[in-house]
């Protein structure tokens, strides 16, 4: 198995089939690289709604392409990141954000690392807790001990 994989990896050209995805069009990129970069970063935070778990930047779907165009139009028009995202959220709801905002509902989600560590800490403390030493022997017990083990 390792050898087969090694051969595959070292092969000069690796051809593999994949569903046709419309490669993003260079024509839709913004002329200003800084703006294009910004648009891409905004796009990476937005979910492609007709895909399974992809951002609009990664997806080849028509709707994703339309949304990418809109993001670029708004960036070129001077909107801030929050405004561009807000424009889409107004129309599609919060679901279009790939990274949810911090709200009372999502608080437990964003705090989960801290909560998990705290819980783990409790378990760890439980695992390492020193057992209380046994209570001291009563005089009668001590006498008995002396009998058994002079």
């Amino acid at each position, binding site marked *: 198995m390792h050898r087969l994989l090694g051969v595959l990896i070292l092969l000069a050209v690796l051809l593999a089939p994949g569903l046709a995805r419309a490669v993003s069009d260079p024509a839709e990129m913004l002329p200003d690289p800084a703006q294009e970069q910004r648009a891409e970063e905004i796009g990476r935070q937005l979910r492609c709604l007709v895909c399974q778990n992809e951002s609009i930047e990664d997806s080849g779907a028509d709707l994703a392409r339309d949304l990418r165009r809109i993001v670029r139009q708004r960036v070129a028009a001077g909107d801030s990141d929050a405004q561009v995202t807000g424009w889409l959220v*107004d129309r599609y709801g919060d679901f279009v954000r790939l990274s949810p905002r911090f709200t009372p509902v999502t608080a437990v989600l964003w705090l989960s690392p801290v909560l998990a560590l705290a819980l783990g800490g409790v378990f760890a403390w*439980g695992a390492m807790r020193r057992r209380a030493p046994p209570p001291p022997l009563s005089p009668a017990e001590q006498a008995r001990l002396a009998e058994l083990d002079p």
Partner: protein
Amino acid sequence: MISRRWLLGLPLGVATLGGVAFWRMLGGMRQGTFDPRGLPSALIGKTVPDFDLPAQLPSAQGFSNADLHQAAAEHPLLLNFFASWCVPCIEEHDQLMALRGGGLPIWGIAYKDQPGAAADFIQRHGNPYQRIAADAPGRVAIDFGLYGVPESYLLDRTGIVRWRWAGAITADVASRQLQPLLQHYA
């Protein structure tokens, strides 16, 4: 000792809660109340966005949101996004004709469709629409929060969106969801 019991019981507790939750989810999926893939509309309870679209067919008339508002004042109406290239649209067409026959005004917007293709579609399957507008670039659809076709929006008499259905309207959807709403907002 008591606290140790609690800690040992925690995994079972979490698993039980999870199990109950998943059971409710499965039940909801079968009834249609829980849909992990569905997307609620952001327009519910609001008026339709501003737009003004041309006619899709020479025989039909284009319309704007003001026209919609005016028409809805007389009777709740259904706004239906469709396309000739969309297979579920053909499936729901008969249902739309039936709804039209039942007295529901339906206005259509053709999403990213060629004029000729839409005309063929209407000719072949019948015309339930009072007006048909063309949204060839698909921008107005995005203003509605559309993510596929067909999608239908029910407007009440004040022009507010009360219901959105993504996908083909089946007889079941029409009777269980749409009819009660029509009676409510009549």
